[in-house]
């Protein structure tokens, strides 16, 4: 019970921190996702300009925009979290306090992540409401919305442990931003965030199915759109990757903490 209080209080503090600078938060979190959405909107509008009723691999213009609205929601909920500060904190010796508190470093970051997720879900729902009200999104099935939301939350767990890994690599590397940016770019292309994976050759799609990428964006979008998805495959493939990265994190942390010098203290 007292342990649950530690988590709740950490989540509360994290919430206060996240909302302390509202404009900054908007610029950092919602801003890029919204801009990315409108860039994709313009891109597909240009592509479909000559014949709006044309089908590209089974997608009309409206279907393509619906795909990208859900892509926006998935990116907000599933891949919104970033361990931007963790590697810098490690390098600058700022994690020392967290090593002394009787609440583990990973617990602190996981509780902060959960708090961040609640905020992201609220923002996504509000944005979705705006898309619906303005007619950019034509209709919404609540059943598929809740299925998609659950899938996105599952994706966010994997994304969190992956981000955590890029953070704790800071025990060895002075700069980890290049790893994070590469990961972001690769994920955007291979997960179907720009082009639906239906547009990829079948051989590619088959290979990608063994990687975590299609499960990060493409499959959650399909779930939101109420299309047929291999649910079991989605759960166990992403689950296997989640356990793999978690195991790597545990090993990296154990070795990394022996390297930690608490510089600047």
């Amino acid at each position: 019970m007292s342990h649950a209080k530690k988590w709740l209080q950490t989540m509360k503090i994290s919430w206060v921190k996240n909302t302390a600078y509202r404009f900054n938060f908007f610029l950092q979190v919602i801003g890029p996702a919204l801009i990315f959405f409108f860039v994709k909107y313009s891109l597909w509008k240009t592509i479909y300009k000559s014949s709006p009723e044309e089908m590209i691999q089974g997608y009309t213009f409206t279907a393509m925009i619906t795909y990208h609205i859900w892509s926006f929601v998935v990116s907000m909920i599933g891949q919104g979290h970033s361990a931007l500060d963790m590697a810098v904190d490690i390098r600058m010796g700022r994690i020392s306090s967290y090593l002394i508190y009787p609440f583990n470093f990973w617990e602190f970051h996981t509780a902060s992540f959960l708090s961040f997720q609640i905020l992201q879900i609220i923002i996504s729902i509000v944005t979705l409401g705006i898309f619906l009200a303005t007619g950019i999104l034509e209709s919404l099935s609540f059943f598929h919305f809740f299925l998609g939301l659950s899938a996105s939350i599952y994706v966010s767990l994997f994304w969190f442990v992956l981000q955590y890994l890029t953070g704790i690599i800071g025990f060895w590397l002075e700069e980890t931003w290049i790893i994070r940016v590469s990961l972001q770019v690769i994920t955007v292309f291979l997960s179907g965030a720009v082009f639906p994976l239906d547009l990829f050759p079948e051989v590619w799609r088959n290979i990608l199915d063994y990687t975590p990428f299609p499960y990060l964006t493409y499959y959650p979008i399909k779930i939101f759109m109420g299309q047929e998805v291999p649910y079991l495959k989605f759960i166990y493939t992403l689950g296997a990757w989640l356990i793999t990265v978690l195991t790597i994190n545990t090993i990296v942390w154990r070795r990394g903490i022996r390297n930690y010098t608490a510089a600047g203290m």
Partner: protein
Amino acid sequence: MIKADKLTKKFTTYKKEPGLSGAIKSFYQRDAIHKYAVKDFDLDIKSGEIIGLLGPNGAGKTTLMKMFTGIIVPSSGEIVVAGHVPSKREKAFRKKIALVMGQKSQLWWDIPALDSFLLLQKYYEVPDSKFNKKINEMGEMLGVTELFDVHVRKLSLGERMKLELMASLLHEPEVLFLDEPTIGLDLIAQENIRNFIKEYHEENNLTVILTSHYMQDVQALCKDLVLIAGGEKAFDGPLKSFEKVLGHKKSVYFTFKDAISLDDQFFKEKDVQVLKGGREIELKIDESDLRDLSSHIIQNYPVIDFHTEKIPIEKVMKSIMKNPEILNQ
């Protein structure tokens, strides 16, 4: 309470030449530099003691603090703090210690201190009644009760340090590590912090390890001190013995109305240094001679002021830093 045996920490860094070519070269050829931050360090501190850990910059003080608190892992040797091996970082151990770093904030920057206190209350499982009593008591002692709701980033350094101290003591630790708690503070704030630590220690009898570059901190708080130089222990004993490292001599300063001549037979056999063109002298004398010699000078010369050296320990430190061999003499 704290026991260290042959404690050693070796850091490995790599040489890197400047510029792009240096960065490329470092990919395939790296020359390692091994440096002992702490070497074969033994220590035995009993429960309830306040120990001053002194030494010049880079001597290894902070490395020792990091090992005592379990933040870094020793390369070899053993440490036991409050019955635990710090590097195992057991939760029971973390609940028994606290660390205050003068150069790093532990309070969350963007929220009021009270929010940080509430978080720490949960982490250390402090009951509400005890928590409220503690923050009220300490808040009054330090005069910061009205600052609890202010965002930490808006506080002055002195105010923040008082709240940092409070945060570290909420769970009533058995051992408190203070790493330069008064650094950068004005004289009044330094004194407030020192008085608080002294008073809190008298009431709670916790073990305190203090590092500081201000000798006033050490003199006001510590009966014993440990000097570390070049990663090795140079002195471990009572403050009084440390003051006597340079011998039982005392420096006495006399200021005269007019410059005096030192050709006088009286000064010929004395260890005397002329200052301010003869209007002031520094006389190094045995403590036992202080009374007789002072009264002789006052009666026979135009003395307008005199004083003995206020902070002998500072002089000892400076002398040791310049010439560590003094300790072996």
